[in-house]
């Protein structure tokens, strides 16, 4: 039984397996399939200052080894989360993080201010990379200036662990990562979805109501592993890797590329118990190869 504990800034995780925002609801949706306290942590879905209805149906399209989504940050708003959802999940023995989104810097800051009352929320993940909203989202994540501005403002408002989620839809993700590191981010998570599109050829119309959407799933894993490897070599803060992780082998690929922790996203839709299987498979791999801890293989490439 190897040691799977990892730290993201001051945040201690019992193991490196987290769930990606927007793919795991508020955790409760999966409690019949796994014991949530086995997870290193989970990141509740994109939360905004005000309630959002999200985009029109259809919001999803299946693609080769992946899927496109255009949910558009549907959520009941931060106040509803704090009053109705947080009390139900706060005592689960794992790290619960909130993915924070906004259309303006003021929005991001306001959500962080409100979340301070949740003393069990030790970390937030700032989403500057959502491809499915008109304002904000990816707009902030595709320039160093925009990314730095959001990070600096949120850093002022939030003194617990601050993770910034990066967009892969850029020429140089390392430049963006360095910019948010410089503004005090404790960690970066990558990759968010790649902007994609699919067409219903028989009906001659887009598959998504928004025409374009975010691509996720194993299809994008090679791109994600490459970006994580590049960013790990460029920054000194811990990196959280995600993008198409379906099993323990995939998770280890990100860790060997340098990731301190990983997030499981789309795979939760196909196997609701995949996260605990991944934890067990990582464990099995370390034991089989006589590694005592993840640090022995992290960034080995």
């Amino acid at each position, binding site marked *: 039984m190897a040691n799977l504990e990892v730290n993201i800034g001051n945040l201690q995780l019992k193991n490196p397996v987290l769930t990606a925002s927007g793919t795991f609801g508020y955790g409760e949706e999966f409690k019949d399939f796994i014991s949530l306290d086995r997870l290193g942590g989970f990141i509740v879905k994109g939360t905004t200052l005000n309630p959002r209805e*999200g985009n029109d149906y259809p919001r999803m399209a299946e693609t080769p080894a992946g899927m496109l989504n255009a949910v558009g940050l549907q959520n009941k708003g931060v106040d509803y989360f704090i009053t109705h959802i947080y009390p139900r999940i706060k005592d689960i023995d794992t790290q619960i993080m909130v993915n924070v989104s906004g259309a303006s810097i003021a929005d991001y800051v306001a959500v962080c201010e409100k979340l301070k009352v949740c003393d069990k929320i030790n970390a937030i993940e700032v989403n500057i990379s959502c491809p499915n909203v008109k304002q904000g989202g990816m707009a902030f994540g595709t320039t160093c200036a925009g990314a730095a501005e959001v990070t600096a403002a949120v850093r002022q408002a939030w003194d617990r662990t601050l993770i910034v989620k990066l967009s892969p839809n850029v020429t140089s993700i390392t430049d963006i990562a360095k910019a948010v590191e410089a503004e005090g981010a404790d960690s970066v998570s990558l990759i968010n979805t790649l902007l994609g599109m699919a067409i219903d050829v028989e009906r001659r119309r887009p598959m998504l109501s928004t025409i374009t959407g975010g691509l996720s799933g194993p299809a994008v894993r090679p791109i994600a592993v490459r970006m994580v490897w590049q960013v790990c070599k460029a920054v000194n803060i811990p990196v959280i890797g995600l993008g198409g992780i379906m099993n323990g082998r995939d998770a280890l690929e990100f860790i060997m590329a340098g990731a301190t922790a990983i997030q499981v996203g789309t795979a939760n*839709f196909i196997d609701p118990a995949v996260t605990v299987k991944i934890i067990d498979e990582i464990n099995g791999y370390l034991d089989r190869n006589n590694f005592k801890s993840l640090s022995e293989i992290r960034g080995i490439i």
Partner: protein
Amino acid sequence: MQPIDTIDRDIMKKYCLDFTVVNNEAIHELYSLLTLTPSDSSTSLPDILPGQFVQVRVDNAETFLRRPISVNDVDRDNHTLSLLVRNAGEGSRWIMNRRQGDTVNLMLPLGNGFGNIAESDNRPLLVGGGVGIAPMLYLGKCMSLQHRVRPAFLVGARSASDVLQLQSLQQWGDVFVTTEDGTMGEKGLVTASSVWNEEWTTVYCCGPAPMMKAIAQICKKKSLPCKVSLENMMACGLGACLCCVEKTVRGNVCVCTEGPVFDTADLTW
């Protein structure tokens, strides 16, 4: 078997289990009827309410996500459930090609189902178009066995050869048929059936969206309660991905958890 009316759907546990194909009958060039039982004989078949569905895992090069399929019937004595599958693409084709003895992984039970049947609902009409008849068989069976109510079924099809599971339906209630070419029952669409001249307490409906919307209109005029089962595309089936949303009077809700069955009064049709 626990009477379904005593089951609180909100506390029904969900499972992800391997099932073994007991039988796979091609009942039509486009439809197969698969009968499945839990592969682990020590695992009992989970409770399933009429109108609930399962998410089937598919393993081929073209398919990535699970496929939602509504439960067509449940046989507690034989620990089996059956799925009526329509050839609608690579995913459903893979399911239809499973042979006896093959293993298929299911997530179940999912969705709200048709809900409890009120005492006053003693003249229910169950309308199915095409593969939409699938959930109606199990609903009618439960009404008949657990409520001593003999439901009426209204089946719409293109032609006589497309009327599915007629004998099975007749076990539980009177069956009225409409075919577009008039080769069986009344000629025309279900909306033109003479059954609409009779009195009903509630209409339960599953089929193509245009058909369900037309029937919702009829019920509105007659101020009849109408419940429809929707088939929005979905990824997870658990309310996590928020992809299968339907607009309702209370905003966008997930068809996989708030549905697939909706009272048409709640929809923005």
